[in-house]
């Protein structure tokens, strides 16, 4: 047998591992800042450090920078070894590495400054979206080319997960990023309202599935057998796990939109598939844990296995909880509360974090040809991280229950017990403080790991090119061992890729296409009109400040919601919302019925005052101050362009609006500024003409104009009907 000599590329793995550690700590620290801001709103130091801008930075950093680099580190290490070959191109590997870091940096340089698309976990603006697409192609190209020059017959199941990850993330990212540019750093989603929501949560949920789950399952199927030195419990089960998981996952997105204006049939499909998901998820979890059958004694001594066992257990817990939360009964209580945040952190800190740590403790000593610097320190890390997760999650679960029940509480006479939304928030501060402490502990653990790994590297010698030998692959076309289909799928990577693509397209297509095309799914409301130019600008400020991170715009048709906010939200109310702003969390109250004509409507002055000093206007509010908006003049450079883009997206702005937009804006802002001036006068505060003009032309006025419009159009209809 012809044995060939070659070398594995460890340099690329080292780079990604280093980036994983650095971005991991950075991303978690940003998370800690956001957590502290919920306890001490004063920690919203400047506009670019305010919660609404920092929270997307945290989510993007931990998902795409920490886990993203972790995926690449693990894939570049395991792929070469599973295929018995070096990566196809070192150049592509390096482009992948540096390109990814530049994308992360561009996120750091845009998100805190308010450049965002306003769609969760897809906040990066269009030029960065294009860069991500190109980089992802580089990664896939290098991976597929490596698979094609392999020295083994079959593709091990971990590689199937990598292929599915590549294909699906590409599809999700491209479809959800369909946006129409206004300028280099501003775009509007092509989809609007309900359709945008469906596409976004199809993306959002599957970002969890195909970025945080499938690649990590691939890593689990490689690193657990590796660390335990025994093959996976059942290879058959892993095949079922793979196909069932990618087939079912893609349907589950609508469970993020239960009781919203999304058509019922789509909600039901989402629920049914979410419930079914528990089968492959738990199949995978058991397969991972049972791999340790007869080797549980190793878990006591081997720190890598310890981390992995907790990771797989956390995976089991969150994949039980996920289907449970997608049942309408539980969702009514959990949705918009901290329960969801606790749930995702069991997945994030437990599954992704702990698996990454385990993997790093395995990789670094291996690549530096030595032993881990301190096993003791790694054990400390393990316990600190595990306790950190519990201290993080348990208070948040509690906060979720407390707030959920408080929202639903009725007096015997049918009125709400907690009429003021704020009462349900101030209760949560102690839980938020505990959560921040749990998060801080987790970061301490990660810093210990960084120290331990650096020390390991310093004491060892890095093996940049690890020598290996393997027999050349003999092309055996006559093999009849197990039928045509097994050969077709498991030995032909390109076909594997295409079949995975078809499997994941089915669910997306069945849910998304009818919602886009069947008119009856989005009943229109004749009184719903496009936003005025000023309101449109105000809406962009709302998006840019990340208000959607704390405020939903979706009153569900539930009595405790309609009692609090007013009429429930209808699909037809959002047809001009590019992008939709339904949100997913109510740290503050829902704003769908904030505008004029609703029972919650407030005066222009109230909004002005509240945006400047929220904690004084609403005692105990944890909202950051937006006083800077009254000092920032509204930039009208792109208003016309924005209107034109909206027209090309199907929003019926008339020619007269396009011609007279400046005058319309002047009129509306003058009216709002006069209302504020009048109320100030009533309070004994006189303002100069210069001051009046400053207020009138500020961003604040545009934002108020938008807030006053929210959910008010449906009342116009009633007025006309009554006449």
């Amino acid at each position, binding site marked *: 047998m012809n044995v060939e000599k070659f070398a594995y590329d460890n340099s690329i793995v080292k780079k990604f591992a280093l980036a994983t550690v650095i971005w991991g700590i950075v991303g978690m620290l940003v998370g800690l800042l956001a957590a502290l801001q919920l306890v001490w709103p004063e920690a919203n130091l400047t506009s670019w450090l305010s919660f609404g801008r920092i929270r997307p930075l945290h989510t993007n950093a931990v998902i795409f920078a920490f886990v993203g680099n972790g995926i690449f580190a693990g894939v570049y290490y395991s792929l070469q070894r*599973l295929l018995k070959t070096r990566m196809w191109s070192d150049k592509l590997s390096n482009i992948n590495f540096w390109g990814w870091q530049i994308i992360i940096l561009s996120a750091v340089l845009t998100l805190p400054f308010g450049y965002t698309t306003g769609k969760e976990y897809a906040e990066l603006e269009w030029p960065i979206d294009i860069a991500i697409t190109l980089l992802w192609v580089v990664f896939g190209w290098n991976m597929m080319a490596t698979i094609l020059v392999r020295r083994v017959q079959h593709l091990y199941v971990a590689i199937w997960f990598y292929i599915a990850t590549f294909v699906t993330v590409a599809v999700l990212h491209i479809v959800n990023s369909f946006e129409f540019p206004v300028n280099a750093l501003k775009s509007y989603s092509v989809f609007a309202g309900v359709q945008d929501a469906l596409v976004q949560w199809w993306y959002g949920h599957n970002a969890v599935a195909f970025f945080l789950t499938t690649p990590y399952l691939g890593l689990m199927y490689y690193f657990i057998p590796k660390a335990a030195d025994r093959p996976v419990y059942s290879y058959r089960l892993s095949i079922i796990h793979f196909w069932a998981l990618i087939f079912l996952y893609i349907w589950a997105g609508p469970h993020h939109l239960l009781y919203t204006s999304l058509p019922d049939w789509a909600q039901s499909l989402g629920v049914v598939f979410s419930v079914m998901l528990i089968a492959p998820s738990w199949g995978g979890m058991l397969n991972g844990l049972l791999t340790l059958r007869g080797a549980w004694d190793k878990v006591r001594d081997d720190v890598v296995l310890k981390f992995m066992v907790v990771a797989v257990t956390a995976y089991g817990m969150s994949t039980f909880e996920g289907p449970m939360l997608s049942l309408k009964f539980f969702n009514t209580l959990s949705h918009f509360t901290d329960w969801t945040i606790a749930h995702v952190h069991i997945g994030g800190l437990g599954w992704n974090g702990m698996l990454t740590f385990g993997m790093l403790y395995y990789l670094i000593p291996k690549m530096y040809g030595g032993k881990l610097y301190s096993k003791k320190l790694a054990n400390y890390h393990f316990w600190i991280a595990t306790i950190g997760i519990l201290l993080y999650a348990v208070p948040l679960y509690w906060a979720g229950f407390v707030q959920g029940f408080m929202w639903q509480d009725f007096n015997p006479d049918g009125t709400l017990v907690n009429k003021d939304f704020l009462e349900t928030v101030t209760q949560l501060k102690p839980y938020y403080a505990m959560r921040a402490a749990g998060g801080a502990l987790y970061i301490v653990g990660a810093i210990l790991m960084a120290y331990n790994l650096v020390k390991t590297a310093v004491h060892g010698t890095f093996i940049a090119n690890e020598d290996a030998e393997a027999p050349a692959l003999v092309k055996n076309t006559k093999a009849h061992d197990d039928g045509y289909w*097994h050969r077709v799928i498991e030995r032909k990577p390109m076909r594997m890729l295409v079949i995975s693509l078809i499997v994941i397209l089915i669910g997306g297509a069945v849910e998304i296409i009818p919602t886009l095309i069947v008119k009856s799914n989005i009943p229109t409301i004749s009184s719903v009109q496009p936003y005025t130019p000023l309101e449109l600008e105000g809406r962009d400020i709302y998006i840019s400040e990340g208000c959607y991170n704390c405020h939903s715009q979706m009153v569900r048709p539930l009595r405790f919601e309609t009692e609090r906010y007013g009429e429930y939200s209808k699909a037809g109310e959002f047809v001009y919302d590019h992008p939709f702003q339904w949100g997913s969390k109510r740290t503050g109250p829902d704003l769908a019925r904030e505008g004029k004509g609703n029972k919650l409507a407030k005066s222009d002055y109230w909004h002005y005052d509240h945006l400047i000093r929220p904690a004084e206007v609403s005692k105990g509010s944890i909202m950051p101050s937006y006083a800077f908006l009254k000092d920032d003049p509204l930039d009208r450079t792109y208003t016309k362009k924005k209107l034109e883009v909206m027209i090309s997206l199907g929003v019926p702005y008339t020619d007269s609006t396009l011609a007279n937009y400046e005058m319309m804006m002047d009129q509306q802002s003058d009216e709002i500024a006069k209302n504020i001036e009048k109320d100030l006068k009533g309070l004994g505060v006189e303002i100069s003409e210069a001051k009046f003009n400053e207020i009138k032309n500020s961003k604040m006025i545009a934002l108020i104009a938008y807030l006053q419009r929210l959910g008010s159009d449906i009342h116009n209809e009633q007025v006309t009907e009554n006449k």
Partner: protein
Amino acid sequence: MLKYIKNHMTSIDGIEIYPIISLSIFFIFFILLFIYVFAGSKKRFETVSMYPILDKESDVITNEINDQKLKN
């Protein structure tokens, strides 16, 4: 952009049949998957499942020889 696609596709007759189609796809998918998995040879699964833990060249060769034997 989207309105063009939307308008064209609303004209598709019987698009409401989608749920029934999806149910059929679902059942067919899983039946095929189970046939696929249980028709596979046990020895091949054993060979492949050893891939992650074979580092040494001699292990790889033995593993590949077993695999070859299986085919002949």
